[in-house]
């Protein structure tokens, strides 16, 4: 009886049922038009804009903290007279500001913008999502202020205070996640595009690992194991997933062709979902934890070759033959570089999980280069690409200055290449020096100095790029419709990143 009385069995719903069934057969017939997409964008507009605004503030704050931390390697007494500006406080404050302030807040915005479009339904509970973003950001602010005051949990990536800050982060993420999952439940499509899998899975994953990582019940080596269970999964099951979802959504749309192999994209997602969670223990190679745990982690890390190569091939083949499109679209340029960096950092991470490589690179500046390749060149560049694509659609006008886009791209791109090459090379040399018993430890420190100074120079370039980007976003928001130039930079289809006045 329950089945007979269900809404689906009612005669008045027959047409709707047929439409849903047909939608499984031919998706090309159910494409949304521009007006429908604009309506969906409108449903998520406020929380997305709020998220981007707060994220940009964090980007600037986190960058400043990173610069201070970097210069302390070159000039150890720099700002050393104030306790709250000592390296032990500034460095974790930089990491937390970038991971939880900038990246996570921007990822909330990106996922809230994508889900209504992918599910073909307005964002559900937008007020809850807005509240979630606010609560999360209050938590991060409290946590970082406490960090700089000397209150820390003392675990890498988990430094934020687990009484005053962490509960707010959990509540905030749960509120945004509830909006995401409610939207998913209200979807008007049968098939879930691969980006939906990535985005929807990210929220329960971050909730589970964040709560588990912050429980104050672990001691000794168990605490270290849980610490890296969290740290690595925060990268792979949170920061990676939403950005891969974004790239899988925007890359085909900008280039104008579907993803090369949808099947490969699913292999990439399910491979990550099934293998990734065991990877974290490879950070503890040589540490006092059971050898089976290390061996399992190294095996899982090597298995990650499957999803990583699947994603890499798929994204490369989607854009193959159309790299020229990067001259026109800054969003695409950032997304392609991010996609390439994902493949590079993942393969680098798999290599680093091997004992022989780890012996050299562990405890060196290589690790910082590796983490910036992942957290910056993949995650941050992907978010830049997303913001370049999304903001004009929500604000209703184009970016005001092509020159500022070029400057932003060149500064952060060049800066990051210098950063990764300098610290990567310096890190390997530092590791080899430390392994040689004939070389005193002090010599390995001296040898690293030029590389650290180069890193600080790169950090300044990147910081200038961030200031330009934030100022440009502010200009976009503040300029009224009437002040939009007659020929906005993107109206006449011409290269944006490379000057070519002949093309019009």
């Amino acid at each position, binding site marked *: 009886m329950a089945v007979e009385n269900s809404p689906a069995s009612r005669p008045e719903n027959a047409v709707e049922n047929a439409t849903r069934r047909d939608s499984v057969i031919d998706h090309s017939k159910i494409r949304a038009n521009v007006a429908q997409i604009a309506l969906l964008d409108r449903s998520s507009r406020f929380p997305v804009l709020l998220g981007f605004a707060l994220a940009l503030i964090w980007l600037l704050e986190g960058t400043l903290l990173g610069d201070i931390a970097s210069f302390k390697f070159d000039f150890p007494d720099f700002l050393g007279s104030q306790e709250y500006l000592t390296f032990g406080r500034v460095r974790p404050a930089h990491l937390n500001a970038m991971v939880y302030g900038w990246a996570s807040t921007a990822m909330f915005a990106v996922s809230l913008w994508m889900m209504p479009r992918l599910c073909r339904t307005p964002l559900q509970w937008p007020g809850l999502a807005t509240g979630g973003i606010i609560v999360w950001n209050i938590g991060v602010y409290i946590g970082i202020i406490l960090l700089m005051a000397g209150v820390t949990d003392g675990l890498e990536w988990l430094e934020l205070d687990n009484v005053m800050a962490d509960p707010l982060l959990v509540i905030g993420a749960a509120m945004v996640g509830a909006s995401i999952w409610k939207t998913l439940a209200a979807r008007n499509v049968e*098939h879930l595009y691969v980006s939906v899998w990535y985005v929807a899975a990210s929220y329960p994953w971050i909730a589970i690992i964040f709560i588990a990582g912050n429980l104050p019940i672990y001691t000794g080596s168990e605490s270290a194991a849980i610490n890296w269970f969290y740290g690595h999964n925060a990268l792979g*099951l949170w920061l990676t997933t939403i950005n891969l979802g974004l790239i899988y959504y925007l890359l085909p*749309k900008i*280039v104008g062709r579907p993803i090369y192999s949808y099947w490969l994209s699913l292999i990439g997602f399910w491979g990550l979902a099934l293998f990734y969670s065991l990877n974290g223990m490879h950070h503890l190679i040589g540490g006092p934890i059971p050898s089976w745990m290390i061996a399992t982690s190294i095996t899982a890390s090597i298995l990650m070759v499957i999803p990583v190569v699947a994603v890499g091939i798929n994204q490369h083949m989607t854009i193959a033959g159309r790299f020229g499109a990067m001259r026109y679209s800054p969003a695409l340029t950032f997304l392609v570089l991010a996609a390439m960096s994902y493949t590079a950092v993942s393969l680098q991470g798999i290599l680093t999980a091997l004992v022989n490589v780890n012996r050299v690179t562990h405890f060196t500046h290589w690790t910082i280069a590796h983490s910036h390749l992942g957290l910056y060149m993949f995650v941050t560049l992907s978010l830049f690409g997303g913001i370049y694509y999304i903001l004009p659609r929500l604000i209703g006008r184009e970016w005001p200055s092509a020159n500022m886009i070029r400057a932003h791209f060149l500064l952060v791109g060049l800066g990051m290449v210098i950063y990764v090459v300098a610290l990567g090379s310096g890190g390997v040399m530092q590791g080899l020096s430390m392994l040689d018993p004939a070389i005193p430890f002090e010599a390995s420190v001296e040898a690293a100095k030029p590389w650290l100074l180069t890193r600080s120079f790169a950090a300044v370039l990147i910081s200038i790029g961030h200031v330009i980007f934030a100022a440009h976003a502010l200009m976009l928001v503040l300029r009224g419709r009437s002040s939009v130039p007659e020929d906005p930079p993107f109206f006449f289809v011409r290269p944006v990143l490379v000057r070519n006045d002949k093309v019009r």
Partner: protein
Amino acid sequence: MFANSVPVILLGLIIGLPPLLFLAWALRNGQFEHLDETSFEIFEEEELRYLRPWEKPKQVSERMQKYGKLLPAQREGWKRWL
């Protein structure tokens, strides 16, 4: 040492088992069928018919064959693909 490993094993299962269940759900609900059609789901109406200035003549003719006569980049047309 094994006692110290229990939390990691439990957490590994908590993270790893739900994807298995969702994978089973996806298989039962046809999420692995009509894959080519699903890959077109993200495109808006006529989004694939807009002329992309970077495309080579062969790529343009391929697009025309697949999606019909191409639409020129009208004023405000940038919004559709850029």
